[in-house]
């Protein structure tokens, strides 16, 4: 997994609540057996006016000029700000894969769906939770100022605004440690092979039917 330490990027405002994973990456793109290449189809049904299918040349498609991701001022966006319950719906990890492949490394929202939140950390992305009031304030600032950028410093757990203002955020210690060091969960778990085997022996005597 790619490390996440500190980054500065263009902020894109996604002003909708309950953005679901079907919207983030529609089902037809889930047929891929790869982990990459989902970026051009991120938010496909909102981003393009025509119907997208896997294998299409997306540069030839009819883009929706009213969709925020297509605004010239937000090109190259790396930080997405969103409303509550972002990423609700299915467990598809294709959703964070698509966001990451497009170029987003940070999402800022008042709340997330649990599975999406969890999946994001496993792909070197940082989903940050801020209060609705702070998120509102960021929406206002982004929309007021073209080229608005934020710096996100994971080590310091701080968002630095263009005017120098600092917003602190909370992050789970374990997840922070994994992101800062680019650690793979499986490698970490396999350090505990002995514990797993001890558990299995104990469980086998208590609940033998689970081991047949």
């Amino acid at each position: 997994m790619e490390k996440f330490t500190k980054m500065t990027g263009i902020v894109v405002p996604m002003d909708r609540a309950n953005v679901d994973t079907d919207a983030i990456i529609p089902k037809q793109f889930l047929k891929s057996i790869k982990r990459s290449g989902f970026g051009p189809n991120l938010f496909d049904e909102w981003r393009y006016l025509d119907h997208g299918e896997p294998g299409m040349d997306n540069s030839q498609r009819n883009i929706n000029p009213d969709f925020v991701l297509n605004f010239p001022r937000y090109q190259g966006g790396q930080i997405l700000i969103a409303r509550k319950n972002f990423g609700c719906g299915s467990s598809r990890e294709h959703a964070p894969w698509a966001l990451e492949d497009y170029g987003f490394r940070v999402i800022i929202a008042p709340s997330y769906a649990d599975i999406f939140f969890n999946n994001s950390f496993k792909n070197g992305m940082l989903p940050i939770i801020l209060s609705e009031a702070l998120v509102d304030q960021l929406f206002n600032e982004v929309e007021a100022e073209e080229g608005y950028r934020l710096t996100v410093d994971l080590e310091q757990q701080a968002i630095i605004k263009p005017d120098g203002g600092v917003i602190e955020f909370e992050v789970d210690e374990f997840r922070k440690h994994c992101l800062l060091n680019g650690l793979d969960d499986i490698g970490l778990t396999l350090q505990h092979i002995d514990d797993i085997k001890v558990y299995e022996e104990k469980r086998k005597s208590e609940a033998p039917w689970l081991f047949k």
Partner: protein
Amino acid sequence: MAKTLYDKLWQDHVVRMDEDGTALLYIDRHLVHEVTSPQAFEGLRLAGRKPWRVETIMASPDHNVPTTDRSQGISDEVSRIQVETLDQNCDDFGINEFKMDDIRQGIVHVIGPEEGASLPGMTVVCGDSHTSTHGAFGALAFGIGTSEVEHVLATQCLIQKKSRNMLIKVNGSVAEGITGKDIVLAIIGKIGTAGGTGYAIEFGGQAIQELSVEGRMSLCNMAIEAGARAGMVAVDDVTIDYVKGRPYAPDGQDWDKAVAYWKTLHSDEGAIFDAVVEIDACDIQPQVTWGTSPEMVVTVIDKVPDPAAETDPVKQEGMMRALEYMGLQANTPIADIAPDKVFIGSCTNSRIEDLRAAASIAKGRKVADNIKLAMVVPGSGLVKQQAEQEGLDKIFIEAGFEWREPGCSMCLAMNADRLEPGERCASTSNRNFEGRQGQGGRTHLVSPAMAAAAAVTGHFVDIRDLE
């Protein structure tokens, strides 16, 4: 100290725990389908790893499979490759898979319980959010992402933090014709799609105890639509009777030992929940969603809500967007809405009781002229076989429904079954998101009997008014 059901299930599966509460949780059953597993198997291969306990895995292709004649295979090349990749991965690693031509093939959340592979007291995971279904057995069951699928394959464990406890208590009995689907839609309407975020939900109360195991599965299936990764119901005799004699259920001495353990799987008297929601069962009417989120739900006797009455501006904006997408006017009576298609199926409602309920409405009636397609998609080959033994297929076909092969089908339209732009569907599935059943498609979530009633009358109707 008194424990909740979730506390017990959690505690029995903790392998180790760090000081900050990050735990390694042991997984008993891993269900696998073709969409969320290929990248996990690829990761496993690249690292030179093998499944830790291959016998805990059960696989079946469900999302991409055609529901029409399968003798020619899958015509869509991308779908075909994904199913073949699952077959290859299962063959390579020695995983028990019910392939497309196996009578036991079906939606993973239907076949796990059907085979007795989802048992009380287990941890059950799958790369699919509707894994919460298996909580109906008093199991801890939840959906995971593909990285976690690989993690379970490689280690038999997951890195997890404990959720908070929520009890949703449905007091009293529901009226006749009110199903687990209506109960869960009413709950989501009350607590919202994020109401259960961060919680494991236990459903309790008389109305839940009175549900069949299949009704409990429909209920727990949609816990995720209320934001909770896991939903569950305490074990009782109904659960144990359902499990007994199934192919992968324990037998002999193991059975007795298992039952003794399973009988402890309920919340203790006086257990503390972080949140409690109480609902009166007698208030629950047949539910119909009107918008693009499962929380946008009313009863069949209501009207489409008016955004003008909403005070929260973000909510109001969402309602207006939903009405526009759904092609609906505020204050339209739900009973005046006419679907173009009807879909009976999905991991929520494709089990034998669902098909019986739909068939009881379809019997002796005809699909209305304005309905372009009414389809019934059983959840598994064995459900299909059972339904055919009971003659349900004939009832449906005589009424003008199409009788299909098992799979996820038009719940998410990854195969050829889908809505065209602007088409409206009465659907027994679980999500009414924009584009879920096909780009531009408009979904109304209902119970199986309500879907069948919409098919034969051509509009939504209170099933209790049908004689």
